[in-house]
């Protein structure tokens, strides 16, 4: 076993240890054991940092990979299924190393932050235990080398998310939110499981490597539509977990959980797990599946951004922003900008965690006031929070010199390249939606910053009857509507903010603030070559490279001859896919990558313009008050309400799925009461009748026979009794009569 594997197992099990200790013994430990959670996570982060150092800094090889597995359950040959062997394994490549470091770092910071934020909560110890099991499950997803174990950890992550969203379960809204999150995730997970089963039914293995090797060898026997279906079904898991369009509704409600949880789970790690998973299965996604993914991502990014601009709850704005950014990542994967999407995953994790922790600091300082309308003027009171929050906001909006700028532009460049390569038309919708969302992002973050930090405090404007019920679930006894003494938060909440804000600066990732591709991240995470082409189901086609060749090997050749005539020629090749099927798959990626490279600067220009436009709009509306936002909202009231009510998705689902389920269950209930119960009652009736007949037979025939025997014996006895007179002489007479009778009989026979 490679030493890195051993270390990664330690990293994986440490948070589990934290969970086990804290869930059972937190009441017996001093400070409810929070130091233990922080300490264990600190150790895990230290080891992860060592792994990161070894893999990324020392090895610095894009193709680095170590894997190890063992057979967990071997069921042999199951009838009707075939060989069923479940393995557990660990794979460490560059992506894993980065994710490990990212997850443990954010988890550590959130643990540390929570010692301040959650102080005084009555379930303080349990909270850290839940954080432990969440971290364990998340690391499991990151390290898994097969679909089965990733599914297990996927569900564990869902469970810990459920537990943490409903941490204040005494609040009805939190209990509802946790149920909603769990159900929405279940819908996605069912799809994901079906996708796993499609692949398993073909290859009888769950391992990523074996599935890809089989696919590359053309062993997928069903039609290509099934492969596309498998890809889209697996993507459904991501749709649920990463809150993409049809199932995005749970994430904003998940903000009922404690704010550090929102930062850890619902901004940085768990929701990114969906994107990570799609990245893991990226090579088996067919172009059709990728198109679906790209459109869903683009639509999600746009829709969530439009909703975010009108929300008043500080966390809800960030939640919709998260949905929107996740849409970006999914869009990035869909258009083939693999490295860019993962880059955005990591940068977003840091700056969004910073934003959430910042908002948590604000909420903490404001005594659980979450409505931005009643904030304002916090800049002077909370300088640290203000500075870090602003820096993270700039990264989210995508201003130059920030990490978000590089990653977002890489995705948008990929989207432009994709649209160019696909031949335009409806595909231009994807970059257009992306750019528009970038503008909206800049606008709503500008609005948020202004409402929260600038101007005068508007606490006194808050209607007295509009008190939040949020605070009573907390164990503290702060008075929400006393004189607001807003203070900067303590060091254990400030330090995570500073660290995360520092990680939102460009220099961490790339020396060139305009081009993320020059940084270590994009160099270490290369687009893996797809193992499926549009016509890969044609088994005659031999794969050129089954061992996942990297983009860098394909790029130079394309770039060499593509300098003069590549785009046009590549497009024409795309038009006639019969030429050479398998190289098409790689060529398509190469073409998109090339086009994306070409679109790098246009993307920067357009997105910068959009961001500046968005920020200017925010300034115009909220700082210079040239446009009154309230009046504008009045004039476009239908649109405003549409956005404020989140596109009415909740209402639509209420009217369709929930009502539908209710109607369906009523129908089933009717069926149950009338048909099933009828059958049961009918059977009971028949049984009763049969039993009655049986009883009669017993009573009259069987008992009759018995009674008749008794009666006849009785009668015979009564008759015979007469002969027993008790007088010896009678018997002698009888004897004589019998002897006499015998003589008569004997002589009669003698005569005749």
């Amino acid at each position, binding site marked *: 076993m490679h030493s890195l594997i051993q270390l990664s197992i330690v990293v994986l099990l440490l948070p589990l240890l934290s969970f086990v200790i804290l869930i059972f013994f937190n009441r017996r430990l001093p400070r409810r054991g929070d130091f233990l959670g922080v300490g264990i996570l600190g150790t895990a982060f230290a080891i992860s940092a060592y792994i990161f150092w070894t893999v990324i800094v020392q090895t610095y090889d894009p193709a680095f990979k170590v894997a190890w597995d063992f057979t967990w359950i071997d069921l042999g040959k199951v009838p009707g299924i075939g060989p069923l062997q479940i393995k557990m394994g660990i794979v460490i490549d560059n992506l894993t190393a980065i994710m490990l470091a990212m997850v443990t770092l954010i988890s550590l910071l959130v643990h540390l932050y929570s010692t301040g934020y959650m102080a005084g909560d009555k379930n303080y110890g349990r909270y850290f235990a839940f954080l432990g099991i969440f971290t364990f499950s998340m690391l499991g997803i990151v390290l898994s080398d097969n679909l089965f174990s990733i599914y297990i950890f996927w569900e564990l992550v869902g469970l810990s998310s459920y537990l943490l969203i409903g941490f204040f379960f005494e609040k009805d809204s939190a209990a509802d939110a946790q149920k909603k999150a769990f159900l929405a995730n279940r819908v996605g997970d069912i799809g994901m499981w079906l996708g796993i089963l499609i692949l398993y039914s073909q290859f009888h293995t769950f391992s990523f490597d074996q599935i890809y090797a089989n696919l590359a060898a053309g062993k997928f026997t069903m039609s290509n539509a099934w492969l596309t279906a498998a890809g889209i079904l697996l993507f459904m898991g991501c749709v649920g977990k990463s809150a993409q369009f049809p199932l995005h509704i749970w994430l904003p409600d998940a903000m009922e959980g404690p704010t550090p949880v929102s930062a850890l789970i619902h901004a940085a790690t768990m929701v990114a797990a969906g994107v990570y998973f799609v990245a893991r299965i990226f090579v088996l996604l067919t172009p059709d599946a990728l198109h679906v993914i790209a459109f869903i991502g683009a639509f999600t990014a746009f829709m969530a951004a439009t909703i975010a601009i009108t929300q008043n709850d500080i966390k809800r704005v960030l939640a919709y922003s998260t949905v929107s950014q996740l849409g970006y990542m999914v869009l990035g994967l869909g258009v083939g900008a693999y490295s860019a999407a993962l880059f955005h995953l990591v940068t977003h994790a840091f700056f969004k965690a910073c934003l959430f922790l910042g908002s948590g600091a604000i909420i903490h300082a404001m005594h659980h006031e979450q409505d931005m309308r009643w904030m304002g003027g916090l800049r002077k009171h909370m300088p640290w929070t203000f500075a870090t929050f602003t820096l993270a906001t700039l990264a989210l909006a995508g201003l130059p010199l920030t990490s978000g700028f590089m990653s977002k532009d890489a995705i948008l460049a990929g989207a432009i390249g994709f649209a160019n390569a696909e031949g335009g038309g409806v595909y231009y919708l994807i970059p257009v939606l992306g750019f528009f969302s970038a503008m909206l992002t800049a606008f709503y973050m500008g609005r948020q910053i202004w409402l929260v930090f600038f101007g005068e405090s508007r606490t006194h404007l808050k209607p007295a009857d509009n008190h939040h019920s949020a605070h009573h679930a907390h164990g503290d006894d702060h008075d929400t509507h006393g004189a607001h003494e807003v203070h900067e938060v303590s060091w254990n909440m400030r330090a995570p903010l500073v660290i995360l804000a520092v990680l939102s600066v460009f220099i961490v990732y790339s020396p060139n603030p305009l081009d993320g591709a020059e940084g270590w991240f994009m160099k270490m995470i290369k687009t893996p070559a797809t193992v499926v082409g549009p016509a890969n189901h044609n088994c005659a086609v031999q794969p050129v490279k089954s061992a996942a060749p990297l983009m860098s090997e394909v790029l130079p050749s394309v770039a060499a001859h593509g300098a003069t005539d590549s785009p046009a020629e590549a497009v024409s090749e795309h038009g006639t896919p019969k030429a050479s099927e398998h190289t098409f798959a790689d060529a398509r990626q190469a073409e998109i990558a090339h086009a994306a490279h070409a679109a790098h600067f246009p993307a920067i220009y357009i997105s910068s313009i959009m961001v500046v436009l968005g920020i200017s709009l925010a300034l115009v509306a909220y700082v210079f008050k040239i446009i009154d936002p309230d009046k504008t909202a009045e004039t476009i009231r239908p649109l405003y309400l549409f956005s404020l009510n989140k596109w009415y998705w909740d209402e639509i689902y209420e009217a369709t799925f929930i009502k539908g389920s209710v109607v369906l269950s009523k129908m089933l209930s009717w069926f149950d009461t009338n048909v099933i119960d009828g059958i049961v009652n009918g059977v009971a009736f028949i049984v009763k009748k049969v039993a009655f007949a049986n009883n009669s037979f017993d009573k009259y025939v069987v008992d009759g026979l018995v009674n008749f025997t008794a009666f006849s014996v009785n009668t015979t006895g009564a008759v015979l009794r007469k002969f027993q*007179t*008790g*007088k010896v002489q009678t018997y002698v007479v009888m004897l004589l009569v019998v002897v006499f009778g015998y003589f008569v009989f004997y002589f009669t026979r003698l005569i005749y």
Partner: protein
Amino acid sequence: MEHLIPIGLNHYLTISAFLFGFGLFAVMTRKNAIVVLMGVELILNAANINFLAFSKFNGGIAGVMFSLFIIVIAAAEAAIALAIVINIFKIFKSVDVSSIDTMKE
């Protein structure tokens, strides 16, 4: 004396039959248990006569032996039966066989 026919088997059997008939009659009709016992003795002696008669006319000693046995058994029987009758009298204050019917039913 010579005109008298010699005594043959039938004479013995006839006497025996009469004796048996008297004995049976006594057993059937008398109420006194003692008399019933005497009837039984008559019946036994009728049988004795039969045995001895057959022994005499057929030769052999088997009949004599049987009759000797019967005499012994009759003696024993008389002893036991009289003891029973005494006990019956002690219980029922009577030796009337028609009134002693407690075994009925």
